[in-house]
């Protein structure tokens, strides 16, 4: 008896420690015994004599012979439980234990597995990135090697390019010097001969100057420092200048040089003449340099406010392989025997892009080369046509200053205003604006507030002190009301919030123009 009690006590303790609960059912699945702790799992409605499947969900469909382990199910109280069905001859014992720890551990394991999977994914991604970086490095390395080769070739080319005109300058100045000395002995060469020598010096100097300009521009290519500044120019004069520069060179080579213009009666357009001239000199200079027999001709057409240029030569032509490389900086054909910097076409292409066009080059080996491009060339707004913008005065006559330190904004303003026939003079800070307003008369000033060296507010203070009443329109990205009030108190004409609509600026300019006599301006 004592032994039985002891066994019962041990069982009870074990059940308690393991949080074991049980339901004992007979062969007809009727509950015959239950443990006291069943309610801790939320099984509160199990009573002796009841059919077990009516009280316990997971028992539905089982008979007394079923032997089964259900490892993870949720009890009515939300605890994860493990269930074992243990059949005997005349009954079935349903053992219920707390499986929360196992569930947690399983969850942790799953989490670790997920993390591992993530790590593997990351590792694969990193390996992929490493592979890509390695490929990029290899590509860069190849580019560097090519750049180094081109730089070496450039140095040798540029040395030759400089040496030729310099030798010519030294030679001709020596001749002039000698003739000056000789004239003292009354044996000097005649004045026409001296003038010829000096013209040769000038030609060589201009050639040197264009070389230096190309070199300087190349330095600016990467930093986007090349800026296009359109102004009113007469195309006929521009092409005359180009002819004067190139003709002597073609004459010395006995190569025919023609410029054919089809630009109508009025050829005054809005264009950056110095940049266009630079492109034409580069293209024509190349054509003349590489053409030893035949001709070089330039054809210019002005149609629908677009200027089309075509330069054709009867030179040796360019192979299909080389055509792909001619736009690369420093690149020069290996077997021509003509030295150069290899920069002319690179710079020309970029400038033409900035002018709004695209450079096209086609060539047939042994027959010649054709270079062409088309750029916008808006006709200059005359008094009559300016009425299209409802302008009481031709705004193109107005002297307008733009003070703006942000190049992105300044370039866009210059270009958009140019499209409307207005030329802006641009300065980058308040101090320069004040200096420009002191040394020039402006009809209108567009000014940023937030600028280095001297702010827009400080410029307004200085203008007030100097009794300068030029209308100043402030453009600011700041919406802080105090900034506007301060500018208005300092006498600004108007205050615009960026982004500024150029049509608003035009409207204000029209107001200013109505009250200002600008008709005297050139």
């Amino acid at each position: 008896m004592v032994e039985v009690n002891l066994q019962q006590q041990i069982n009870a303790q074990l059940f308690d420690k393991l949080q074991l609960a049980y339901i004992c059912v007979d062969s007809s699945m009727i509950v015959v015994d239950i443990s006291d702790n069943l309610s801790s799992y939320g099984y509160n409605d199990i009573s002796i004599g009841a059919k077990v499947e009516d009280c316990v969900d997971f028992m539905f469909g089982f008979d007394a012979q079923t032997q089964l382990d259900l490892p993870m199910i949720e009890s009515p109280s939300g605890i994860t439980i493990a269930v074992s069905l243990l059949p005997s001859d005349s009954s079935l014992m349903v053992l219920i234990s707390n499986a929360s720890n196992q569930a947690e551990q399983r969850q942790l394991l799953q989490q670790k597995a997920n993390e591992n999977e993530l790590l593997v994914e990351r590792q694969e991604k990193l390996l992929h990135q490493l592979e890509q970086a390695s490929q990029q490095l290899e590509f860069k390395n190849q580019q560097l090697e090519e750049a180094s080769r081109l730089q070496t070739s450039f140095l040798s080319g540029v040395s030759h390019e400089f040496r030729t005109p310099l030798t010519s300058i030294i030679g001709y100045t020596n001749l002039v010097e000698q003739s000056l000395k000789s004239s003292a002995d009354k044996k000097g060469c005649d004045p026409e001969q001296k003038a010829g020598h000096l013209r040769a010096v000038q030609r060589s100097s201009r050639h040197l100057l264009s070389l230096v300009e190309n070199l300087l521009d190349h330095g600016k290519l990467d930093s986007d420092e090349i800026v296009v500044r359109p102004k009113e120019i007469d195309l006929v004069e521009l092409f005359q200048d180009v002819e004067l520069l190139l003709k002597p060179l073609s004459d010395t080579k006995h190569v025919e040089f023609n410029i054919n213009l089809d630009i109508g009666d009025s050829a005054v357009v809005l264009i950056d003449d110095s940049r266009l001239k630079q492109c034409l000199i580069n293209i024509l200079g190349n054509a003349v340099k590489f053409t030893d027999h035949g001709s070089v001709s330039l054809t210019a057409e002005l149609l629908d406010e677009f200027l089309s240029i075509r330069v054709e030569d009867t030179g040796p032509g360019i192979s299909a392989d080389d055509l792909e490389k001619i736009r690369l900086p420093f690149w020069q054909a290996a077997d021509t025997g003509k030295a150069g910097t290899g920069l002319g076409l690179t710079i020309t292409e970029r400038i033409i892009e900035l002018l709004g066009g695209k450079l096209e080059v086609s060539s047939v080996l042994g027959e010649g080369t054709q270079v062409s491009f088309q750029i916008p060339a808006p006709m200059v707004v005359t008094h009559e046509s300016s009425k299209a913008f409802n302008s009481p005065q031709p705004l193109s006559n107005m002297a307008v200053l733009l003070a703006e330190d942000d190049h992105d904004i300044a370039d866009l303003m210059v270009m958009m205003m140019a499209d409307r026939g207005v030329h802006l003079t641009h300065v980058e800070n308040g101090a320069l604006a004040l200096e420009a307003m002191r040394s020039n008369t402006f009809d209108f000033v567009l000014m940023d507030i937030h600028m280095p060296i001297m702010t827009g507010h400080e410029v307004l203070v200085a203008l007030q002190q100097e009794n300068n009443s030029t209308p100043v329109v402030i453009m600011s990205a700041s919406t802080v009301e105090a900034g506007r009030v301060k500018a208005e108190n300092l006498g600004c004409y108007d205050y615009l919030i960026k982004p500024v609509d150029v049509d608003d600026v035009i409207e204000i300019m029209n107001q200013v123009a109505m009250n200002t006599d600008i008709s005297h301006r050139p």
Partner: protein
Amino acid sequence: MSLSESPQVKALKERYKASFPEKLELLRQRREAIADGHISSQQRMQVNEVLHKLAGSSGMYGYHEISASCREIMAEIDVADTSFLVPKITELMLLIERHS
């Protein structure tokens, strides 16, 4: 030809778009400088300077969403702490990234 969309203006717009990586890098540097939770008055000024420029130029080039986002941060710049600024700058960077 539309006056506001001349080839030169289009070329400038392309140039501006190409400058986005540079602008992103500048924003990243400013964000990194304040990522430890502290912001000095000088850093506040530097952040404002970048936003001010970007607010003006992006709007001029037609990126009104970017401009508005800059202004939203600028409106709080004098009082905002880094817990506001860092995520807002990140949002702005993502916006620029989307337009790149």
